[in-house]
């Protein structure tokens, strides 16, 4: 007996343990739903967040190199393993930047001396992308050098077994024109300043001689078809200017030379065969920005940067205007103290400034972003250079060299670049632009979310314009007037509509409705007018019928009665459409719209999207609004009717007022759905990111944009993160609508239960 109860007891304990375990398990499972939502929220944030971070610099290594003469330029290769420097005595030195095997950072790997008979008088360099350097000599000649790096994967006995081959980078030097000096000045005067660019074979030099004479020397390369030899034909131009020239810059397309003389910048056009003509004289706005002290070219070579003695850096680029393209002041950056040197990145519009007070600044032009300001090192910085991937910074200070890890993944993204008008290079004015990919390496991505957010709102607005009246009216009728037997069949039918895959609606909209709307445009417009008219006329005719017949079909079945009427009117509108078109629009409504009214017409337009997405939204609105109206307590409406109000008065004055929160929540839910809908917009519009309310043009929405571009974006890139931001914006949009709708609905439910 005792043992039995003990057994029972232990069995009971087991049951209790199970019960407790289940309680915790189920609770955990329930809370998991909340966790899932939070996870989505925070994960999206986690991916988005890095784009708003500022630059982080970390010292990796430092070393010293013998100081023999002035350093003209420093640079490094892609993997940031090897650096090089040009010295004023004509020496090019390659040195290791990392400790690898027996190599130490700072070890000189290769030295090359650039020498002709004459004395070196000037030094210049191309944009980092071309990474060519030029020494100018006292006899008016110049030598162009390019540090090159050979990457190889040599197979050794040690590597053969593991299949893993070590990468070896070897530096070498390449000369233009096989190292033969190129004549820049025919009269063999010493070159005091030198600027150089190349587009592969052709070359353009700009040099200053005798303080105020600008020389432009253009080398045209011609390849001999038979031998493949390249012969260079120079064309020399000399332009005397009024006073000493401070800076010269040459663009890499070899079409422009810019010369700064104090606060004025002369812009010269160079034709394909080397003819030079002065185009404009650009004042540096010294009153506003301070006296100009230097001039630099930005990556992409469309913008020039001017430094001013107030510590400002101004950006200028060509803008199409009445007198052709002219340089214009765009924006300025505040470096704190006068800037002594600017280095630009290889591909992005980021630049590094060194100021008199020893600060280094990092800016991004289009994002108008101030990414970094400070002194990364105790010593005075003399020169900086980034590697082609912009991951490392090589810095020369008065105490040696330092390598810094630059964490600057997304300089082009800033709050203002995403949500405000941005003046992009080559654009006539600041604008909202979305253009994520382009052809060339130095293409600047344009990430304004404004046009696609606008598109989202536009699509949702047209859909709601279509769906709200029909959805609400249908809901009211179904809940309040319809006879129960019909309602039993109507409600599920409309709700089935919600289950229809949107890909099918989108496909029909794009391939069936859009061509139809184009061909029968007047028909579409007349349906909107004719159908309601016909319904009212039918109602009027019906009311004149003898009561005997009228009683057979009550008001509760009117919608069934109206089906043939609506069908007939629809058919009639389309039949008449060509005739209407013939009479009113000269036989082609589309051409009439474009030519006479100046309205652009796309085949896949907002009208089509509005209708298709309207159909996707109607069931959502219908379902919730119908529930709200139906659950209004019957004693309210019965009381109103008993007091002599007509059914319509009861509806508008009593029922709708009571159910209005529910109706509001239905509209909110519908809006939430319209905002996030992807497939319909993707398939039924041209997906062009334009900002125009025109109903006959398309749009690009946040969701469609994600669907189109996400598969092609590189993981971790700015583009990828911006698309996550778009998703996050959508998430917040719908979260907002849904939460409001849910709150209102909860309140309503409480209200009804108290009635």
């Amino acid at each position, binding site marked *: 007996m005792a043992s039995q109860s003990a057994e029972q007891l232990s069995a009971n304990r087991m*049951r209790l343990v199970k019960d407790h375990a289940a309680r915790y398990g189920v609770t955990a499972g329930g809370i998991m739903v909340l966790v*899932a939502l939070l996870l989505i929220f925070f994960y999206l944030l986690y991916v988005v967040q890095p784009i708003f971070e500022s630059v982080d610099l970390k010292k990796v290594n430092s070393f010293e190199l013998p100081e023999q003469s002035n350093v003209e330029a420093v640079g490094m290769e892609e993997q940031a393993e090897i650096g090089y420097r040009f010295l004023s005595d004509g020496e090019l030195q390659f040195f290791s930047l990392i400790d690898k095997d027996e190599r130490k950072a700072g070890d000189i790997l290769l030295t090359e001396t650039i020498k002709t008979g004459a004395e070196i008088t000037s030094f210049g360099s191309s944009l980092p992308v071309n990474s060519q350097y030029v020494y100018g000599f006292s006899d008016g000649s110049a030598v162009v050098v390019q540090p090159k790096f050979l990457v190889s994967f040599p197979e050794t006995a040690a590597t053969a077994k593991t299949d893993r081959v070590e990468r070896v980078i070897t530096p070498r030097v390449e000369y233009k024109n096989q190292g033969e000096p190129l004549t820049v000045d025919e009269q063999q005067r010493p070159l005091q300043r030198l600027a150089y660019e190349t587009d592969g074979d052709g070359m353009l030099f700009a040099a200053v001689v005798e303080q105020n004479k600008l020389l432009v020397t253009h080398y045209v390369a011609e390849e001999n078809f038979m031998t493949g030899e390249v012969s260079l034909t120079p064309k020399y131009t000399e332009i005397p200017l009024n006073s000493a020239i401070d800076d010269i810059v040459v663009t890499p397309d070899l079409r422009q030379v810019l010369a700064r003389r104090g606060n004025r910048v002369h812009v010269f056009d160079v034709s394909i065969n080397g003819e030079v003509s002065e185009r404009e004289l650009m004042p540096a706005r010294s009153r506003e920005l301070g006296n100009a002290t230097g001039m630099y070219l930005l990556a992409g070579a469309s913008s020039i940067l001017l430094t001013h003695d107030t510590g400002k850096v101004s950006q200028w680029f060509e803008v199409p205007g009445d007198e052709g393209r002219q340089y214009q002041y765009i924006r300025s950056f505040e470096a704190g103290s006068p800037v002594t040197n600017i280095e630009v990145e290889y591909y992005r519009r980021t630049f590094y400034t060194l100021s008199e007070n020893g600060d280094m600044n990092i800016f991004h032009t289009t994002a108008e972003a101030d990414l970094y300001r400070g002194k990364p090192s105790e010593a005075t910085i003399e020169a900086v250079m980034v590697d082609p991937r912009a991951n490392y910074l090589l810095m020369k200070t008065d105490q040696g060299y330092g390598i810094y890890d630059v964490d600057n993944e997304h300089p082009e993204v800033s709050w203002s670049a995403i949500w405000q008008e941005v003046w992009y290079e080559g654009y006539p004015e600041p604008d909202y632009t979305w253009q994520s990919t382009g052809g060339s390496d130095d293409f600047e991505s344009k990430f304004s979310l404004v046009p696609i957010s606008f598109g989202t709102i536009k699509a949702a607005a047209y859909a709601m314009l279509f769906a709200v009246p029909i959805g609400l009216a249908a809901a009211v009728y179904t809940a309040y007037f319809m006879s129960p037997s019909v309602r039993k069949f109507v409600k599920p039918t*409309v709700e089935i509509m919600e289950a229809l895959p949107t890909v099918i609606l989108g496909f029909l909209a794009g391939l069936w409705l859009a061509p139809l709307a184009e061909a029968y445009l007047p028909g579409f417009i007349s349906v909107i007018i004719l159908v309601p008219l016909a319904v009212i006329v039918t109602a009027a005719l019906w009311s004149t019928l003898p009561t005997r017949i009228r009683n057979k079909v009550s008001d509760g079945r*009117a919608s069934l009665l109206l089906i043939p009427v609506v069908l007939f009117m629809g058919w009639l509108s389309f039949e008449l459409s060509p005739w209407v078109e013939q009479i009113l629009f000269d036989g082609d409504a589309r051409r009439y719209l474009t030519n006479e009214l100046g309205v652009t017409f796309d085949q896949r337009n907002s009208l089509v999207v509005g209708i298709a997405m309207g159909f996707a939204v109607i069931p959502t609105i219908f379902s919730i609004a119908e529930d709200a109206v139906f659950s209004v307590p019957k004693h309210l409406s019965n009381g109103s009717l008993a007091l002599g109000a007509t059914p*319509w008065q009861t509806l508008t004055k009593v029922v709708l007022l009571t159910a209005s929160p529910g109706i509001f929540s239905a509209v909110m839910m519908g809006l939430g759905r319209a905002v996030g809908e992807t497939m319909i917009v993707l398939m039924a519009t041209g997906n062009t990111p334009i900002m125009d309310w025109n109903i006959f043009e398309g749009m690009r929405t946040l969701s469609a944009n994600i669907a189109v571009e996400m598969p092609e974006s590189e993981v971790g890139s700015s583009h990828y993160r911006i698309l996550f931001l778009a998703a996050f914006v959508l998430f917040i949009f719908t979260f907002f609508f849904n*939460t409001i709708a849910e709150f209102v609905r909860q309140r309503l439910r409480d209200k009804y239960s108290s009635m």
Partner: protein
Amino acid sequence: MKKWFNTGKPWIWLTAGSVSVSLIAVIGLVLMIGWRGLSFFWPSAIHQMTVQQVNGETAELIGEVYDSESVPTTRLNAETIKLGNIESEMVTRYLMKIGNREYVPLDFTWVLESLIVEDKTPADMAVIERTKDGNFYGKIMAITEKGEVIARHTDDNFRQVMFDRVERAVELNDQAMDLQEGEISAINYQLSQLNLERRRLELENALTDEAVADLQRQREQLQAEYQVYEEQLFELREKAKKNSLLVRDFRGEEVTVPMYRVLDVNFPNDMGFFAKTGHFFQQIGKFVSEDPREANTEGGVFPAIFGTVFMVLLMSVIVTPFGVIAAVYLHEYAGKNSVTKLIRIAVINLAGVPSIVYGVFGLGFFVYMVGGSLDQIFYPEALPNPTFGTPGVLWSAVTLAILTLPVVIVSTEEGLSRIPSSLREGSLSLGATKWETIWRIIIPMASPAIMTGLILAVARAAGEVAPLMLVGVVKAAPMLPVDGNFPYFHLDRKFMHLGFHIYDVGFQSPNVEAARPLVYATSFLLITVIVGLNLTAIGVRNHLREKYRSLEQ
């Protein structure tokens, strides 16, 4: 009249009108897709038309009437109007599908009704379905074997001979295909597994000389097997190449159509109603059971059906337990506190978050983060090629499981709330613990509601495309996610999906006109499945309501 307006009747009728509009839209949509989708399978007559040309000559056309429309005469050019003596304001024109893609620039052409001189439908016009270049229309003149004519169309048993030969060629092709997709692909799979094995051993520093020799031996063995199969394959192909059809096309030229490309030959003009019905069902059967051809614009949709079903099943397995547990928590355990309120808001919001956001989340979190980590831990030998760190069927299922979670929760909770509390109280008063009550009484009773939720979730998942575009769907998957190679289920593979198939074929295909009927047919298939599932769910729910109504009383 004013008085009548004051009664509000016209407005009531207007609201009634909007119900009519909604009904017409739903029913019309389904009917239209059904009609267009199904009529694609019905054999249509082949017309042989003689059409006047602008240069005064006449030309012959053979093909199906694909579509017709009426256009205002003003849109035609003057020469055509003069040629056709057109006086009416509108003219009808037909879109003809003329096939024979390798001999014409476009396999569709418009023909004005008034320019047709003669239009007949001869009984001996054949449609030849081919594996490449689409249909061929023409009159079959003879059958050749290695260039020699073995039967002419004037022969009595010509059609019998032809069908026999076609059947034989199809049979040989099938065998070759089976060999290629069965044995040969299995060997390829094993070879790639061997490579991975080698790499794995290498990473574990266990790649001894014995292991290398062993792997090499296995590889050689497989390659020897491969040789044998390959020879068989070539032999089959050689056999299939033997016969050809000699067909007279619309230009009057005799063209050779090699038999190994022929899938089927039909004479629609020679079919009676029953033959046509038979052909109709046969075509539907082919549509659901065959692989797509010609960049998805022809053939069937079997891989898409398979992919959809497989993904949805996988999703059901994931979503059901979580959904039910969450619903049980909300209805049976949760107190009236702010946490419960938050969870309810979370459920509503999960239901309202746009599906593309789930896609983005799934891609970032599941594919790159979770999948990437799995690859690092379990599949280092395949790196840098991702195994799970790339979109695939598993991640699609998981993503859609979160997306459909609210559907299951809401439906299950509704089912739970319909169970009278007297049942719970009865069970508890008899000494059962809460868990036992839930497990033994409540959940079994709520199972139809769970089923409803699951069916609705499946219907939602089957129609969802946007998130799948990011997490695993592709336009053409070379291999199904289930096959005969160990471990049989390949959850890392990409898959095809009916919804995406519609998008892809309708919008990305090179020949939209030819693909359109296929898109309608696919749409119809998808709608049938989804509407069917929804109707079942509604039926189950109504049944359930009736059942508990009687219990409550």
